[in-house]
């Protein structure tokens, strides 16, 4: 068990090292570097060399990677090109804003997804299932920017209930931020809930068909007792991993949603830094987003391990 946890953490770290290599090599191999984009037409002769020297691009790539990786481990991402300020200062408020958005969506989304998933599974192929399942399929297939745009059109423009876009400075306090994020949270929570509800549904259905549930029915265990004691604990366990993957997958969708709502989070920073060809910031973002992905998966794996006694013994015997 202990070794298994260590092994998972090590695998996650290896993944992150490969991600850092991929982003570094990727930005290195692709045409154009920070200096040519920064200087644009004046990128020749003395100006270019001075720029290379200033950004340290004159030293060989592998040495640069090592020194960059070393400072990243210490929590220093270097300087952003466009703003000429430390990337850490750029990132700080953005990370906080995105965290607020994501946690609000998760807090709202997970309970609703659980309830919907269980309802649709218990009333499988009946009216509640058919209605809810149809809605969830729509919610999860339609692109984020479409559902967000429709939300703005209907709630903000036609009904005039809420403001359509978020107009706050990047370093806004959480209390000021909260009233502004209702629509973005709904947009993100909707897709997330739909995904998770589908997963919970199929997980519950699988458990309902298992031998021990059939046995419980035959023994005459009351229906709801069987649902809460036998079905749900076993059904929700595999759902943890899937929920983690869904959250991680949404990292991409959040970028688009943030752009639609003009929300000052990490997602908009991705677009801004790529438009400005601010490669150091892009590298930092890649590492941060990949770390979020890896750690969410790691936490889910560990949770599943800790909650599932069968997995423990299985791995130790190996």
């Amino acid at each position: 068990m202990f070794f298994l946890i260590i092994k998972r953490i090590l695998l996650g770290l290896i993944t992150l090292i490969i991600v850092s290599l991929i982003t570094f090599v990727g930005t290195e191999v692709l045409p154009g570097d920070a200096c040519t984009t920064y200087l644009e037409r004046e990128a020749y002769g003395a100006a270019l060399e001075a720029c290379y020297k200033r950004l340290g691009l004159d030293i060989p790539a592998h040495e640069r990677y090592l020194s960059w990786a070393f400072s990243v481990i210490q929590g220093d991402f270097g300087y952003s090109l466009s703003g000429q300020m430390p990337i850490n200062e750029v990132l700080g408020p953005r990370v906080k804003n995105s965290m607020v958005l994501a946690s609000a969506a998760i807090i709202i989304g997970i309970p609703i997804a659980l309830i919907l998933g269980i309802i649709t599974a218990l009333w499988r192929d009946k009216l509640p299932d058919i209605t809810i399942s149809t809605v969830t399929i729509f919610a999860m297939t339609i692109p984020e920017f479409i559902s967000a745009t429709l939300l703005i059109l209907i709630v903000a423009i036609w009904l005039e209930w809420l403001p359509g876009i978020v107009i706050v400075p990047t370093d806004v306090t959480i209390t000021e931020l909260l009233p502004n994020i209702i629509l973005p949270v709904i947009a993100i929570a909707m897709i997330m809930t739909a995904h998770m509800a589908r997963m919970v549904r199929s997980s519950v259905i699988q458990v309902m068909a298992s031998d021990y549930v059939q046995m419980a029915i035959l023994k005459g265990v009351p229906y709801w007792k069987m649902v809460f004691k036998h079905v749900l604990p076993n059904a929700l366990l595999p759902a943890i991993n899937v929920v983690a993957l869904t959250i991680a997958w949404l990292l991409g969708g959040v970028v688009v949603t943030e752009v639609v709502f003009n929300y000052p989070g990490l997602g908009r920073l991705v677009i801004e830094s790529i438009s400005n060809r601010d490669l150091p910031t892009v590298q930092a973002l890649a590492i941060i987003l990949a770390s979020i992905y890896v750690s969410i998966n790691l936490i889910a794996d560990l949770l599943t391990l800790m909650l599932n006694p069968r997995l423990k013994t299985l791995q130790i015997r190996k």
Partner: protein
Amino acid sequence: METKKSSEFKKKSIFYKISEVLVTMASKPSGFIGLSILFFHILLAFSSPYLAPYDFKAIDPSLMLQAPSSEYWFGTDSLGRDVFTRTIMGGRTALTITFFGSLIALLWGGLLGIFCGLVGGKVDDVVMRIVDAFLSIPWILAMLLIVSLLGTSTEVLIPALGFFYGKGIVRVARAATHDVIAKDFIVSARARGHSNLSIIWNEIIPNVRDAILVEGAMRWSWMLLGFSSLSFLGFGVSPPTPDWGLMISNARGLMSFAYWAVIAPIVGLSSLIIGINLTADAFAKALGIDRSTKAPV
């Protein structure tokens, strides 16, 4: 499971098998709806240049933001272009790029997955680590980076999308190969002295094909979603080309007034994505593959 001998399967032509799968898919209402929507969109993509009542790039300032009328069915956009014309043509680029992108994804993802599943050991470990690493970079960041550095031409978009949506197929193909590889018929093929290539071609591919195809169909809808998001963000199709993602992003600023210029491409894109999704689901069911517990990776 299957009681028929393999010789009986081989008698049926590939067209017979395809039509058989199509009939099974269409026999359920959701599959029928999905197939009809997809068929409609493909038909529209081929015929829309001949059906379009106006020129898709004809700019006329005097016709700016006209409400839908008998002359302009879906109204006009902020540059006075006919929204109906642009909407019916808006799926052509997206469908073409994502279709070929999915083919590339299927090909390299499937082959690499089969290879890893077959070889196993150190090679498999290393490749899967790299695939995992690619999976943990958000697709949008990677795509945006490639597109912003290499441009948004079709020659860049198709391989880039194909590459990034193929990495998930590697996993599926590898898992399917793992399931097959321990079966008796592989062992006996090895015992008969068949080469690895012959085993891959004759024994493994026919057995993992369905799983990979189903995954590919699902990738197609995700790729369409990804591609439209790129267009929406201004990193996909370049402007005069009619494209739904781009149309939505252009018309969004004025939607408090000219909602028709937003609604029409939204209906186009949503219906296509839902159509592909329903078709992929029906396809999975018709081939007897349960992908309901799969997470979107």
